[in-house]
C-alpha cells in the first residue's frame, strides 16, 4: 500500500506493507539515525518525532503515519548539534547508539516542560536507555544546555 507523509519536512509518497513498522520504513528511506535496540518497545533507540511528539517507531505501524509529519535526527541537524555539543563536552556520547533517540526526546521535553528539575528531566527521558554512560553525564549536559539556553 501507499502512504503519504512528511519525512523531515519533505512530502513523500511511499510504498509500505500494511504490517510494516515505521522504524523499518524510515531506515529504508535513508533515515539511518533511527536505531533498532529491542523487540519490546523498551529501549527508546528508535524514537522519532511524530507531529513534534516522541514516539517509538519500532512499535508504530507505518500505515498510521499517513498524513503526519516525522522528524528524525537527519531533519533537525542544527538543533541536534546545539544539544549534542553539551553531551559531547560532558563525555555523554560513548558508543552513540542511544543518542539520536535521546536528543529527539530532549527536543520534545524542551517544548513540553518549562524549567524542569533534575527529577523531571530524568523522568521525562527515562524511556531512553543507555548502557554505556551511566546517565550522569547526560544529566549534567542537559542541565547545562537548558541553563545556558536561558
Amino acid at each position: 500500500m501507499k502512504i503519504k507523509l512528511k519525512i523531515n519536512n519533505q512530502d513523500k509518497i511511499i510504498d509500505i506493507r500494511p504490517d510494516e513498522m515505521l522504524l523499518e520504513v524510515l531506515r529504508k528511506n535513508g533515515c539511518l539515525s533511527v536505531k533498532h535496540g529491542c523487540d519490546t518497545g523498551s529501549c527508546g533507540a528508535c524514537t522519532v518525532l511524530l507531529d513534534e511528539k516522541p514516539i517509538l517507531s519500532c512499535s508504530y505501524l507505518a500505515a498510521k503515519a499517513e498524513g503526519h509529519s516525522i522528524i528524525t535526527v537527519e531533519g533537525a541537524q542544527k538543533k541536534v548539534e546545539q544539544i549534542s555539543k553539551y553531551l559531547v563536552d560532558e563525555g555523554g556520547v560513548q558508543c552513540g547508539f542511544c543518542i539520536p533517540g535521546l536528543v529527539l526526546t530532549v527536543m520534545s521535553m524542551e517544548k513540553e516542560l518549562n524549567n524542569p528539575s533534575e527529577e523531571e528531566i530524568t523522568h521525562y527521558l527515562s524511556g531512553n536507555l543507555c548502557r554505556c554512560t551511566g546517565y550522569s553525564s547526560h544529566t549534567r549536559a542537559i542541565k547545562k544546555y537548558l541553563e545556558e539556553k536561558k
Partner: protein
Amino acid sequence: MKQVNKSVPKIDGMGLAKGKPAFTDDLADSNAIIVKVLRSPHAFARIKNINVDKATKYPGVECIFTHKDVPRNVFTRAGQGYPEPSPKDKFILDEYVRYVGDELAIVAASTDEVAEQAMKLIEVDYEVLEPVLDFEKAENNKSVIHPEKEPYTMFPMGFDASKNIACTYDMHVGDVDEVLKNSEVVIDKTYYTQAQAHVAIETHSSTAYIDHYERLNIITSTQTPVHLRRIIGEALGMPINKIRVVKPRVGGAFGGKQQIHGELFCALVTLKTGRPSKCIYSRKEVFESSFSRHAMRLNIKIGAEKSGKLKAIDLRVLSDTGAYGEHALTVFMIAGSKTLPLYNKVDAVHFGGTVVYTNHTPGGAYRGYGAIQGNFALESAMDELANKLNIDPLELRKMNMIKEGETSEIFKIMGEGGEGTAQIIESCKLDYCLKRGSEMIKWNNKYQNKNKKVIDDKVRGIGLAIAMQGSGIPNMDMGAASLKLNDDGFFNLLIGATDLGTGSDTILAQIAAEALNVPVEDIVVYSSDSDLTPFDCGAYASSTTFVSGNGVKKTAEKMKNLIISEGAKHLKIDVSDTIFDGKIIKSKDGENSISLKEISKGWLYNYGQAQKQLLAVDSYVGKKSPPPYMAGFAEVEVDTKTGHFDILNYTAVVDCGTTINPKLALGQMEGGLLQGIGMAVYEDVKYNKYGQMLTNNLMNYKIPTREDVPNINVEFADSYEPSGPYGAKSVGEIGIDTPPAVIANAIFNAVGVRITDLPITPEKVLLAMKKKQIK
C-alpha cells in the same frame, strides 16, 4: 603535558549524535540477503533428522544450511589470542543442540518475513535429551553435554568432556590448611554470583560481501577484528588472505562482542551466493543465544589474627560456562588472580576449582571478567571478618592491603590460562583512595552510627570495598600503530585498537599528539580494519589505553625522530643539532629552520630525488600489567518493614594512573559503576525448569534506567604509572567490580543481615531480616 590529561571532546561524538551512518546495519548493502538462524527450542537434544525441502522451495529463499552442509571444523568462538585458552568445542552447526537458542539451521532469504516463514517450514525430528540445568550437579552427570570426540584444548587445562568439565585449575602458596588451622579467627563462607547479560543497545550485527578482488569482506560489530579473521578462516577452512574484517562504530560491547556471533553465518551465505548478506540479531537472540557472565559459586576461607592481620585465604570456585567453553578458564582464574593480590601479606593462599558445562546459554567475556565475582566473595568475607573482630572494615583493609613497591606471588603464578608475569607494583594509591573516599562519604560518623533510624521504619547503613583489575595481558597482547605524514603537516594514525564507544580513537590521537607536540586535530585516526591497520589484539582485558597507548606512543616518538633526522638532512645540519618543536624543524641556535607544513609539502611534491614518504610503525607488548585500583563506598537506606532499599550515595576514588582524558575516564567509571550496581541489585538471567530463559527481553530483564541512578561521585587519585603511556593505566573494567560487595556490606551495616547470593533484592533482605528475628 599539553594534549594528554586533558578532556578533549570525543572525536566521533558529534558525528554519532548527528546520526551519521556508522554502525554495521547502517553500512550493509540495501539489497543484502537477510540471514536468520533457526534455533533450538530444547535445552539438550540430538537432531535425528532435519528436512529443509519445503523451506528451500519457499519463494524468496536463497539458501539454507544445516549441520550437513557446513564444514565440520572444531573451534572456539571466544575471540581470544593464539593459542586460545578456551576449549575448542564448537562447530558452526552440529547434530546436537545444547541450550535453548542454540543454532540448528541458517536461513538466507530476500526479506525478514520470507526467512521467518521459511523457518517454520523446516521439519526437525529431535531426540530430546535430559539437560543439565543445575551447575552444582553438572560434574559427572549422566548427561554428557559434549559426547562428540573432536573437542580439544590447545594446552592442558584439565578439560574432561566426559565429566562435563571444561577446565580445572589449582594453585597454592604455602600450606593453606595448616595456616587456617592455626589462625585465631576463620571466616568460612559461600557466595553465589548470577549470570548477567551485557545488553549493549546495538544488538550483534554483521554483514558480508565479496569485493572486486573476489575477497570476502565482513563488516561487524566486534571487539576483536584480527582474531575474528583467524577464527573465521579456521572454522571455514579457508585461507585468511581471502578475508577482510572491518569494525565500524560499535554500539556498546562490554565483552559481549569479543566473541563471534553472526559473522560465520553471513560468510557462508555470501560465499555461497556471491551476494551481500546481513545478520542482525533480535534482542531475544542476544539474550538467549549469545553469551552472559559466568555464574559462580565461591567458597572462601579467611584466616586472621585477632589483631586483624590476615594469615591465609582459600578461594574455591565452581563456574558455569553453559553449553560451550568460551572464556571458561580465564574468567574463572581471574576471580582469583585479580582479587587475591589485594591482600599480599598472607602466609598462605590457595585458589582452585572447576568450570563445568551445563545446558545454559554460554558464559563469555563480560567487563570485570571474573574479578567482579571474586570481589563480591572476597570483599564480603573481609566485611564479615571485620565484624567478627569488631574492627572498622576500613582499618582492616588498610592493615592488610597491597602497597606501592610491593608485589604478590600470584602475579607470577597465575596468568592468562597459564603462568603469569612477576611484577612490582609501581603505582598504587589505594591508601589515598580509601582516605579520600571515606572523607567524601563521611565514613567515620556514619559507620559508627549504624542502624541509624531516619524516619519511621527506615534505617541507614554504609559499606565499602576495594578492587583491582589489570592493564592488558603481559608478554602476549600486542598493540601496533602507524603514522603517516601528509602535506600540510598533518598525520594519519592507523591503529588496530578497537573503539567500542570507549573513546580509544580519541585518547590514542591525544597520545600521538602529545609525543609529536602537535594539536589533536592534526592526527586523523582510522582504526580496526584487518587489511589496513596494524595488528592489535583488540579491546579486552583492559588493554587499550596501556597496550595500544604504549604502541602509539612508541610510533609517534619514532615519527618525531624521523622528522628530525630527515629534517636535518634537508637543512644540511647535524642530527644532534636538530630539534622539532611540533611546528618547526630547526638547529638549536635557530639559524636554520623550516616549518613542518613546508617541508612536508616539499617531501611529497618538490624535492626531486629527495622526495620521500615519512611513515613510522611500531608495536608494544606489555612486560607487566599494572593494576588500576579503587575504593568504593555506598550508603543505603533500608525499609525494615518491606526490605526495600535505596542506594543514596555511591562514592568511588580510583587510581588508574594519570588519566589521558579525564572526562572520558569519568564516563568509563560512571558507566562501569552503574553496570556493577545493575549486577548487584537488579539484573539476573533466569531460566525455567526446562532451561528456557525467562529474562529474554528488556521487560523481564531490567537494566538500570536514568531513574535508578544514585548520587554517584567519582574522583581520580593523583597517580603516575611509570610503565604506562604518560603515566596511564587502564580504566575500562575497574569501575564495575565493587558494587556487589559494597552494597551487601552497606545493607549488613544497616540491618545486620548478610546477602550472599546476587542480586541483592528487597525480598532477600526482608526474608533474611525475618529469619534473624526468629532466631
